Protein backbone atom coordinates (compact mmCIF):
# COMPACT_ATOMS: atom_id res chain seq x y z
CA UNK A 1 0.00 0.00 0.00
CA UNK A 2 2.84 2.36 0.84
CA UNK A 3 4.30 1.79 -2.58
CA UNK A 4 1.01 2.83 -4.11
CA UNK A 5 0.91 5.95 -1.96
CA UNK A 6 4.50 6.82 -2.80
CA UNK A 7 3.83 5.98 -6.43
CA UNK A 8 0.78 8.24 -6.49
CA UNK A 9 2.74 10.99 -4.75
CA UNK A 10 5.52 10.59 -7.29
CA UNK A 11 3.12 10.84 -10.20
CA UNK A 12 1.44 13.82 -8.56
CA UNK A 13 4.79 15.55 -8.05
CA UNK A 14 5.81 15.01 -11.67
CA UNK A 15 2.41 16.09 -12.95
CA UNK A 16 2.45 19.19 -10.73
CA UNK A 17 5.92 20.10 -11.94
CA UNK A 18 4.87 19.68 -15.57
CA UNK A 19 1.66 21.64 -14.98
CA UNK A 20 3.52 24.54 -13.38
CA UNK A 21 6.19 24.51 -16.06
CA UNK A 22 3.58 24.62 -18.82
CA UNK A 23 1.79 27.52 -17.26
CA UNK A 24 4.78 29.62 -16.49
CA UNK A 25 6.78 29.18 -19.65
CA UNK A 26 6.07 32.16 -21.81
CA UNK A 27 8.69 33.83 -23.88
CA UNK A 28 6.32 36.27 -25.51
CA UNK A 29 5.13 39.29 -23.67
CA UNK A 30 2.19 41.51 -24.47
CA UNK A 31 4.25 44.36 -25.78
CA UNK A 32 2.81 47.57 -27.08
CA UNK A 33 4.54 47.16 -30.43
CA UNK A 34 1.40 46.09 -32.21
CA UNK A 35 0.78 49.63 -33.34
CA UNK A 36 4.06 49.46 -35.24
CA UNK A 37 3.14 46.23 -36.96
CA UNK A 38 -0.39 47.09 -38.03
CA UNK A 39 -1.02 47.27 -41.72
CA UNK A 40 -2.76 50.32 -43.08
CA UNK A 41 -6.35 50.67 -41.93
CA UNK A 42 -6.04 47.23 -40.37
CA UNK A 43 -8.75 47.86 -37.84
CA UNK A 44 -11.11 49.70 -40.13
CA UNK A 45 -13.75 47.03 -39.87
CA UNK A 46 -13.23 46.21 -36.20
CA UNK A 47 -15.22 48.09 -33.61
CA UNK A 48 -16.09 47.42 -30.03
CA UNK A 49 -19.73 47.43 -28.87
CA UNK A 50 -21.49 45.78 -25.93
CA UNK A 51 -22.06 42.77 -28.22
CA UNK A 52 -18.36 41.99 -28.80
CA UNK A 53 -18.87 38.48 -30.09
CA UNK A 54 -15.82 38.32 -32.32
CA UNK A 55 -12.12 38.84 -32.67
CA UNK A 56 -10.26 41.28 -34.86
CA UNK A 57 -7.96 39.63 -37.38
CA UNK A 58 -4.41 40.94 -37.05
CA UNK A 59 -3.88 40.85 -40.79
CA UNK A 60 -7.19 41.39 -42.55
CA UNK A 61 -8.44 43.95 -40.04
CA UNK A 62 -11.91 42.43 -40.06
CA UNK A 63 -13.95 41.24 -37.13
CA UNK A 64 -14.97 37.58 -37.30
CA UNK A 65 -17.30 35.75 -34.92
CA UNK A 66 -15.62 33.53 -32.36
CA UNK A 67 -18.08 31.23 -30.63
CA UNK A 68 -17.05 30.87 -27.01
CA UNK A 69 -13.92 32.92 -27.49
CA UNK A 70 -12.39 34.17 -24.25
CA UNK A 71 -10.57 37.08 -25.87
CA UNK A 72 -13.33 38.60 -27.99
CA UNK A 73 -12.74 42.27 -28.67
CA UNK A 74 -15.09 43.38 -31.45
CA UNK A 75 -18.61 43.21 -32.77
CA UNK A 76 -18.86 40.77 -35.68
CA UNK A 77 -22.47 41.72 -36.45
CA UNK A 78 -22.08 42.90 -40.01
CA UNK A 79 -22.71 46.56 -40.51
CA UNK A 80 -22.83 47.56 -36.84
CA UNK A 81 -19.71 49.70 -37.16
Amino acid at each position, binding site marked *: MKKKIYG*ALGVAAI*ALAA*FLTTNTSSS*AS*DTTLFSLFKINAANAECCSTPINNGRC*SSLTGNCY*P*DAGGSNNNCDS*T*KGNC
Partner: protein
Amino acid sequence: MSLRMPLILHSIAYAIIICCFISCKNSAGIEIKNDKRGSLKAAKMLALNGDKKFSLDSLSAPRPPYIQLYNDANGNEYLAMLSGYSKNIFIYNYDSANNPVNQIPISTVQMPLAFHIRNMDSIYVYNDKMMEMILLNNKSEIVSKVSLINNENMKDLSWTNRYPQYVPHGVNAIIEHEGKLVFPGQFIWTLPDTIAQQFRFTSLIDVNSNKVNYVHKYPYNIYGHGYLWDEPMFTGVYYDIMPDNKKMVYSFPVSHDLVISDLDADKETTVYGGSNEAASITSLDADKFKKKSAAPNEYIYQKACTSDLYGGILYDKYRDVYYRFLRKALPEKGVRLRWENKKVAVVVMDKDFKYLGETELGDLNEFYPDNSFVTKEGLNVEYVAPNDVEEKFLTFRIFRLKDI
Protein backbone atom coordinates in the same frame (compact mmCIF):
# COMPACT_ATOMS: atom_id res chain seq x y z
CA MET B 1 -9.23 6.85 7.71
CA SER B 2 -6.13 4.91 6.79
CA LEU B 3 -8.02 3.43 3.86
CA ARG B 4 -9.35 6.77 2.65
CA MET B 5 -6.04 8.59 2.49
CA PRO B 6 -4.71 6.77 -0.55
CA LEU B 7 -7.98 7.34 -2.33
CA ILE B 8 -7.74 11.06 -1.69
CA LEU B 9 -4.14 11.11 -2.85
CA HIS B 10 -5.07 9.12 -5.93
CA SER B 11 -7.87 11.53 -6.69
CA ILE B 12 -5.55 14.51 -6.34
CA ALA B 13 -2.93 12.86 -8.51
CA TYR B 14 -5.42 12.02 -11.24
CA ALA B 15 -6.90 15.52 -11.11
CA ILE B 16 -3.45 17.03 -11.50
CA ILE B 17 -2.62 14.67 -14.37
CA ILE B 18 -5.87 15.63 -16.15
CA CYS B 19 -5.08 19.33 -15.58
CA CYS B 20 -1.67 18.72 -17.06
CA PHE B 21 -3.09 17.08 -20.16
CA ILE B 22 -5.64 19.86 -20.63
CA SER B 23 -3.02 22.54 -20.24
CA CYS B 24 -0.61 20.76 -22.55
CA LYS B 25 -2.99 19.77 -25.31
CA ASN B 26 -2.28 22.70 -27.64
CA SER B 27 1.33 23.23 -26.62
CA ALA B 28 2.65 20.73 -29.10
CA GLY B 29 2.46 22.49 -32.44
CA ILE B 30 3.30 21.15 -35.83
CA GLU B 31 6.29 21.77 -38.05
CA ILE B 32 5.50 21.35 -41.73
CA LYS B 33 8.76 20.57 -43.45
CA ASN B 34 9.50 21.26 -47.09
CA ASP B 35 11.21 18.01 -47.98
CA LYS B 36 12.21 19.14 -51.47
CA ARG B 37 13.65 22.48 -50.48
CA GLY B 38 16.86 23.19 -52.37
CA SER B 39 16.62 20.10 -54.57
CA LEU B 40 14.22 21.30 -57.28
CA LYS B 41 15.59 22.26 -60.70
CA ALA B 42 14.11 25.20 -62.59
CA ALA B 43 13.54 25.14 -66.34
CA LYS B 44 11.09 28.04 -66.71
CA MET B 45 10.71 31.55 -65.42
CA LEU B 46 8.20 34.38 -65.64
CA ALA B 47 9.17 37.53 -67.50
CA LEU B 48 7.35 40.87 -67.52
CA ASN B 49 5.26 41.24 -70.66
CA GLY B 50 3.68 44.67 -70.16
CA ASP B 51 0.89 46.32 -68.18
CA LYS B 52 -2.86 46.62 -68.59
CA LYS B 53 -4.64 49.66 -67.15
CA PHE B 54 -8.33 50.12 -66.41
CA SER B 55 -9.54 53.57 -65.39
CA LEU B 56 -11.19 54.02 -61.99
CA ASP B 57 -13.88 56.49 -61.02
CA SER B 58 -13.45 58.84 -58.09
CA LEU B 59 -15.09 56.40 -55.66
CA SER B 60 -13.04 53.35 -56.57
CA ALA B 61 -9.53 52.47 -55.49
CA PRO B 62 -6.92 49.90 -56.45
CA ARG B 63 -6.99 46.52 -54.67
CA PRO B 64 -10.76 46.17 -55.23
CA PRO B 65 -12.44 43.53 -53.07
CA TYR B 66 -13.27 41.28 -56.01
CA ILE B 67 -12.74 40.89 -59.75
CA GLN B 68 -13.90 38.38 -62.34
CA LEU B 69 -12.68 37.66 -65.85
CA TYR B 70 -15.50 36.34 -68.02
CA ASN B 71 -16.52 35.81 -71.63
CA ASP B 72 -19.84 36.69 -73.20
CA ALA B 73 -21.71 34.48 -75.67
CA ASN B 74 -19.73 35.98 -78.54
CA GLY B 75 -16.42 35.15 -76.94
CA ASN B 76 -15.54 38.71 -75.97
CA GLU B 77 -13.43 38.86 -72.83
CA TYR B 78 -14.39 41.21 -70.01
CA LEU B 79 -12.94 42.14 -66.67
CA ALA B 80 -15.56 42.90 -64.00
CA MET B 81 -14.59 44.76 -60.83
CA LEU B 82 -16.52 45.22 -57.59
CA SER B 83 -16.47 48.73 -56.23
CA GLY B 84 -17.58 48.21 -52.67
CA TYR B 85 -17.92 51.84 -51.76
CA SER B 86 -20.13 52.89 -54.68
CA LYS B 87 -21.82 49.45 -54.81
CA ASN B 88 -21.32 48.93 -58.50
CA ILE B 89 -19.79 46.24 -60.63
CA PHE B 90 -17.80 47.94 -63.39
CA ILE B 91 -17.24 46.03 -66.60
CA TYR B 92 -14.29 46.62 -68.88
CA ASN B 93 -13.46 45.17 -72.23
CA TYR B 94 -10.25 43.34 -71.38
CA ASP B 95 -8.57 43.87 -74.75
CA SER B 96 -9.21 47.59 -75.09
CA ALA B 97 -9.03 48.23 -71.30
CA ASN B 98 -9.36 51.95 -70.41
CA ASN B 99 -12.93 53.03 -69.50
CA PRO B 100 -15.69 50.69 -68.33
CA VAL B 101 -18.17 49.65 -71.02
CA ASN B 102 -20.94 48.91 -68.55
CA GLN B 103 -21.81 49.05 -64.90
CA ILE B 104 -24.19 47.04 -62.77
CA PRO B 105 -25.66 48.83 -59.75
CA ILE B 106 -25.87 46.48 -56.78
CA SER B 107 -27.16 48.88 -54.13
CA THR B 108 -29.86 46.35 -53.21
CA VAL B 109 -27.14 44.13 -51.74
CA GLN B 110 -26.18 45.23 -48.22
CA MET B 111 -22.58 44.02 -48.08
CA PRO B 112 -21.39 42.75 -51.47
CA LEU B 113 -18.06 40.92 -51.24
CA ALA B 114 -18.04 38.70 -54.32
CA PHE B 115 -20.00 38.06 -57.49
CA HIS B 116 -20.39 35.77 -60.46
CA ILE B 117 -21.73 37.01 -63.78
CA ARG B 118 -23.39 34.20 -65.75
CA ASN B 119 -24.83 36.71 -68.20
CA MET B 120 -26.19 40.23 -67.90
CA ASP B 121 -29.57 38.92 -66.74
CA SER B 122 -28.17 36.52 -64.20
CA ILE B 123 -25.71 38.02 -61.73
CA TYR B 124 -24.96 36.32 -58.42
CA VAL B 125 -23.70 38.55 -55.63
CA TYR B 126 -22.54 37.30 -52.23
CA ASN B 127 -24.05 39.38 -49.40
CA ASP B 128 -21.80 39.07 -46.36
CA LYS B 129 -24.25 40.77 -44.02
CA MET B 130 -26.74 37.92 -44.23
CA MET B 131 -24.32 35.27 -45.56
CA GLU B 132 -26.43 34.64 -48.64
CA MET B 133 -26.06 34.43 -52.39
CA ILE B 134 -28.38 36.87 -54.17
CA LEU B 135 -29.43 36.55 -57.79
CA LEU B 136 -30.00 39.83 -59.64
CA ASN B 137 -31.60 40.33 -63.03
CA ASN B 138 -30.61 42.83 -65.72
CA LYS B 139 -32.42 45.60 -63.84
CA SER B 140 -30.49 44.81 -60.65
CA GLU B 141 -33.68 43.52 -59.07
CA ILE B 142 -33.44 40.67 -56.58
CA VAL B 143 -34.73 37.47 -58.14
CA SER B 144 -33.82 35.06 -55.34
CA LYS B 145 -31.75 34.63 -52.21
CA VAL B 146 -30.00 31.51 -50.95
CA SER B 147 -28.84 31.36 -47.35
CA LEU B 148 -25.41 29.81 -46.98
CA ILE B 149 -26.06 29.03 -43.30
CA ASN B 150 -29.43 27.35 -43.82
CA ASN B 151 -31.26 30.43 -42.47
CA GLU B 152 -29.88 29.87 -38.98
CA ASN B 153 -29.95 32.65 -36.42
CA MET B 154 -26.74 34.60 -37.01
CA LYS B 155 -26.64 35.82 -33.42
CA ASP B 156 -26.31 32.28 -32.12
CA LEU B 157 -22.74 31.66 -33.22
CA SER B 158 -22.98 27.88 -33.12
CA TRP B 159 -23.43 28.01 -36.92
CA THR B 160 -19.77 28.96 -37.21
CA ASN B 161 -18.87 25.36 -36.33
CA ARG B 162 -21.10 23.96 -39.08
CA TYR B 163 -20.81 26.34 -42.03
CA PRO B 164 -17.88 28.04 -43.74
CA GLN B 165 -17.37 31.78 -43.69
CA TYR B 166 -16.18 33.69 -46.73
CA VAL B 167 -13.13 35.89 -47.25
CA PRO B 168 -13.37 36.34 -51.02
CA HIS B 169 -10.40 37.20 -53.22
CA GLY B 170 -10.32 37.92 -56.94
CA VAL B 171 -7.83 35.08 -57.47
CA ASN B 172 -10.51 32.74 -56.11
CA ALA B 173 -13.16 33.00 -58.82
CA ILE B 174 -16.61 31.60 -58.09
CA ILE B 175 -16.82 28.60 -60.40
CA GLU B 176 -19.83 27.31 -62.29
CA HIS B 177 -19.91 23.52 -62.55
CA GLU B 178 -22.80 21.45 -63.89
CA GLY B 179 -25.54 23.78 -62.68
CA LYS B 180 -23.84 24.55 -59.39
CA LEU B 181 -21.86 27.50 -58.13
CA VAL B 182 -18.68 26.35 -56.41
CA PHE B 183 -17.93 28.85 -53.64
CA PRO B 184 -15.26 27.75 -51.16
CA GLY B 185 -15.10 29.47 -47.79
CA GLN B 186 -13.03 28.66 -44.73
CA PHE B 187 -12.97 28.20 -40.97
CA ILE B 188 -11.77 31.47 -39.55
CA TRP B 189 -9.87 30.63 -36.36
CA THR B 190 -8.15 27.50 -35.03
CA LEU B 191 -10.22 24.52 -36.14
CA PRO B 192 -11.37 22.69 -32.98
CA ASP B 193 -10.30 19.07 -33.04
CA THR B 194 -13.84 18.01 -32.21
CA ILE B 195 -15.08 19.18 -35.63
CA ALA B 196 -11.90 18.96 -37.72
CA GLN B 197 -12.91 15.72 -39.42
CA GLN B 198 -16.44 16.85 -40.21
CA PHE B 199 -16.12 20.52 -41.14
CA ARG B 200 -16.58 21.17 -44.87
CA PHE B 201 -15.56 24.47 -46.35
CA THR B 202 -16.81 24.48 -49.95
CA SER B 203 -20.40 25.45 -50.74
CA LEU B 204 -22.05 23.97 -53.82
CA ILE B 205 -25.09 26.08 -54.64
CA ASP B 206 -27.56 24.45 -57.04
CA VAL B 207 -28.74 27.30 -59.28
CA ASN B 208 -31.99 25.50 -60.14
CA SER B 209 -33.14 24.17 -56.78
CA ASN B 210 -31.25 26.68 -54.60
CA LYS B 211 -30.11 23.80 -52.39
CA VAL B 212 -26.67 24.09 -50.85
CA ASN B 213 -24.29 21.20 -50.22
CA TYR B 214 -20.99 21.44 -48.38
CA VAL B 215 -17.98 19.42 -49.45
CA HIS B 216 -14.22 19.10 -48.89
CA LYS B 217 -12.40 19.04 -45.58
CA TYR B 218 -9.14 20.50 -44.32
CA PRO B 219 -6.14 18.13 -44.29
CA TYR B 220 -6.35 16.73 -40.78
CA ASN B 221 -2.60 16.26 -40.38
CA ILE B 222 -2.15 20.04 -40.68
CA TYR B 223 -5.32 21.65 -39.37
CA GLY B 224 -6.50 18.89 -37.03
CA HIS B 225 -5.22 17.90 -33.58
CA GLY B 226 -6.09 21.37 -32.27
CA TYR B 227 -2.97 22.86 -33.85
CA LEU B 228 -3.12 26.60 -33.43
CA TRP B 229 -3.66 28.52 -36.66
CA ASP B 230 -5.52 31.33 -34.98
CA GLU B 231 -5.80 33.79 -37.86
CA PRO B 232 -7.84 33.70 -41.08
CA MET B 233 -4.64 34.24 -43.08
CA PHE B 234 -3.46 30.76 -41.96
CA THR B 235 -6.80 28.97 -42.40
CA GLY B 236 -7.54 30.55 -45.80
CA VAL B 237 -8.42 28.37 -48.78
CA TYR B 238 -7.17 29.11 -52.29
CA TYR B 239 -8.32 27.02 -55.20
CA ASP B 240 -8.97 26.51 -58.89
CA ILE B 241 -10.87 23.96 -60.89
CA MET B 242 -8.72 21.48 -62.78
CA PRO B 243 -8.86 21.18 -66.58
CA ASP B 244 -10.97 18.00 -66.45
CA ASN B 245 -13.69 20.11 -64.78
CA LYS B 246 -14.23 17.35 -62.23
CA LYS B 247 -11.69 18.13 -59.55
CA MET B 248 -10.62 21.09 -57.46
CA VAL B 249 -7.04 21.83 -56.51
CA TYR B 250 -6.63 23.50 -53.12
CA SER B 251 -3.68 25.55 -51.94
CA PHE B 252 -3.58 26.04 -48.17
CA PRO B 253 -1.30 28.84 -46.98
CA VAL B 254 0.67 26.71 -44.53
CA SER B 255 1.09 23.56 -46.65
CA HIS B 256 3.76 22.84 -49.23
CA ASP B 257 1.40 20.25 -50.65
CA LEU B 258 -1.73 20.69 -52.74
CA VAL B 259 -4.96 18.80 -52.16
CA ILE B 260 -6.94 17.55 -55.16
CA SER B 261 -10.59 16.86 -54.37
CA ASP B 262 -13.28 15.37 -56.58
CA LEU B 263 -16.31 17.60 -56.99
CA ASP B 264 -18.72 14.72 -57.33
CA ALA B 265 -17.19 12.14 -55.03
CA ASP B 266 -15.71 12.05 -51.55
CA LYS B 267 -12.20 11.39 -52.80
CA GLU B 268 -9.00 13.35 -52.46
CA THR B 269 -5.31 13.04 -53.12
CA THR B 270 -2.30 15.06 -52.03
CA VAL B 271 0.56 16.11 -54.28
CA TYR B 272 3.66 18.13 -53.64
CA GLY B 273 3.31 21.70 -54.88
CA GLY B 274 5.92 23.64 -52.94
CA SER B 275 8.63 26.19 -53.53
CA ASN B 276 12.31 25.34 -53.79
CA GLU B 277 13.02 28.12 -51.31
CA ALA B 278 10.21 27.92 -48.75
CA ALA B 279 11.30 26.77 -45.31
CA SER B 280 9.43 24.77 -42.67
CA ILE B 281 6.19 26.35 -41.52
CA THR B 282 5.23 26.00 -37.86
CA SER B 283 1.90 26.50 -36.15
CA LEU B 284 1.49 29.00 -33.34
CA ASP B 285 3.27 27.94 -30.19
CA ALA B 286 1.03 28.11 -27.14
CA ASP B 287 4.09 28.32 -24.92
CA LYS B 288 4.78 31.74 -26.41
CA PHE B 289 1.79 33.31 -24.74
CA LYS B 290 0.03 32.91 -21.47
CA LYS B 291 -3.60 33.07 -22.55
CA LYS B 292 -3.83 29.81 -24.44
CA SER B 293 -7.29 30.50 -25.80
CA ALA B 294 -6.08 33.41 -27.93
CA ALA B 295 -2.68 34.43 -29.22
CA PRO B 296 -1.70 38.09 -28.92
CA ASN B 297 -2.09 40.05 -32.14
CA GLU B 298 1.57 41.09 -32.29
CA TYR B 299 2.67 37.44 -32.01
CA ILE B 300 0.33 36.43 -34.85
CA TYR B 301 1.52 39.34 -36.97
CA GLN B 302 5.17 38.47 -36.38
CA LYS B 303 4.45 34.83 -37.19
CA ALA B 304 2.71 35.77 -40.45
CA CYS B 305 5.61 38.01 -41.46
CA THR B 306 8.32 35.48 -40.66
CA SER B 307 6.57 32.48 -42.26
CA ASP B 308 6.47 31.42 -45.88
CA LEU B 309 2.77 31.50 -46.74
CA TYR B 310 1.34 30.19 -49.98
CA GLY B 311 -1.49 31.98 -51.76
CA GLY B 312 -3.67 31.62 -54.82
CA ILE B 313 -3.36 28.84 -57.37
CA LEU B 314 -4.31 29.35 -61.03
CA TYR B 315 -4.47 26.95 -63.94
CA ASP B 316 -3.24 28.44 -67.23
CA LYS B 317 -5.22 26.77 -70.01
CA TYR B 318 -3.12 28.46 -72.68
CA ARG B 319 0.16 26.94 -71.49
CA ASP B 320 -1.10 23.93 -69.51
CA VAL B 321 0.68 24.93 -66.32
CA TYR B 322 -0.25 25.96 -62.77
CA TYR B 323 0.88 29.08 -60.96
CA ARG B 324 1.01 29.12 -57.16
CA PHE B 325 1.72 32.30 -55.25
CA LEU B 326 4.02 32.44 -52.26
CA ARG B 327 4.38 35.30 -49.77
CA LYS B 328 7.97 34.72 -48.71
CA ALA B 329 9.11 34.87 -45.10
CA LEU B 330 10.91 37.93 -43.80
CA PRO B 331 14.00 37.23 -41.71
CA GLU B 332 13.26 37.23 -37.98
CA LYS B 333 16.00 39.75 -37.29
CA GLY B 334 17.55 42.65 -39.12
CA VAL B 335 14.49 43.98 -40.97
CA ARG B 336 11.36 45.78 -39.93
CA LEU B 337 8.52 43.29 -39.79
CA ARG B 338 5.91 44.72 -42.11
CA TRP B 339 3.53 42.47 -44.04
CA GLU B 340 3.92 44.65 -47.14
CA ASN B 341 7.66 44.00 -47.21
CA LYS B 342 7.17 40.31 -47.92
CA LYS B 343 8.32 39.25 -51.38
CA VAL B 344 5.82 37.73 -53.76
CA ALA B 345 6.99 34.71 -55.72
CA VAL B 346 5.19 32.48 -58.20
CA VAL B 347 5.89 28.76 -58.36
CA VAL B 348 5.19 27.25 -61.80
CA MET B 349 4.22 23.59 -62.19
CA ASP B 350 3.23 21.52 -65.20
CA LYS B 351 -0.17 19.85 -65.57
CA ASP B 352 0.99 16.99 -63.34
CA PHE B 353 2.32 19.43 -60.70
CA LYS B 354 5.93 18.78 -61.59
CA TYR B 355 8.07 21.74 -60.59
CA LEU B 356 9.11 23.98 -63.48
CA GLY B 357 10.57 26.95 -61.64
CA GLU B 358 9.74 30.01 -59.58
CA THR B 359 10.10 33.74 -60.02
CA GLU B 360 10.09 36.57 -57.51
CA LEU B 361 7.90 39.44 -58.76
CA GLY B 362 8.42 42.13 -56.12
CA ASP B 363 6.96 42.83 -52.70
CA LEU B 364 3.45 43.20 -51.34
CA ASN B 365 3.82 46.98 -51.37
CA GLU B 366 3.49 46.88 -55.14
CA PHE B 367 1.86 43.56 -55.95
CA TYR B 368 -1.54 42.34 -54.79
CA PRO B 369 -1.58 38.66 -55.78
CA ASP B 370 -5.07 38.13 -54.34
CA ASN B 371 -6.29 39.87 -57.51
CA SER B 372 -4.81 37.73 -60.27
CA PHE B 373 -6.05 35.83 -63.30
CA VAL B 374 -4.81 34.25 -66.51
CA THR B 375 -5.36 35.45 -70.08
CA LYS B 376 -3.77 34.45 -73.37
CA GLU B 377 -1.24 37.24 -72.74
CA GLY B 378 -0.04 35.58 -69.55
CA LEU B 379 -0.42 35.75 -65.76
CA ASN B 380 -2.07 39.05 -64.72
CA VAL B 381 -1.19 40.24 -61.20
CA GLU B 382 -2.55 43.50 -59.78
CA TYR B 383 0.18 46.11 -59.48
CA VAL B 384 -0.03 49.27 -57.39
CA ALA B 385 2.83 51.71 -57.82
CA PRO B 386 4.06 52.55 -54.29
CA ASN B 387 3.94 56.29 -55.05
CA ASP B 388 0.48 56.19 -56.69
CA VAL B 389 -1.63 58.67 -54.72
CA GLU B 390 -4.06 59.59 -57.49
CA GLU B 391 -5.48 56.06 -57.81
CA LYS B 392 -6.75 56.64 -61.33
CA PHE B 393 -6.14 53.15 -62.65
CA LEU B 394 -6.52 49.52 -61.78
CA THR B 395 -3.29 48.09 -63.16
CA PHE B 396 -2.21 44.55 -63.90
CA ARG B 397 1.31 43.44 -64.68
CA ILE B 398 1.37 40.60 -67.16
CA PHE B 399 4.00 37.87 -66.86
CA ARG B 400 4.76 35.40 -69.58
CA LEU B 401 6.36 32.00 -69.17
CA LYS B 402 9.70 31.50 -70.85
CA ASP B 403 12.54 29.00 -70.85
CA ILE B 404 15.56 29.76 -68.73
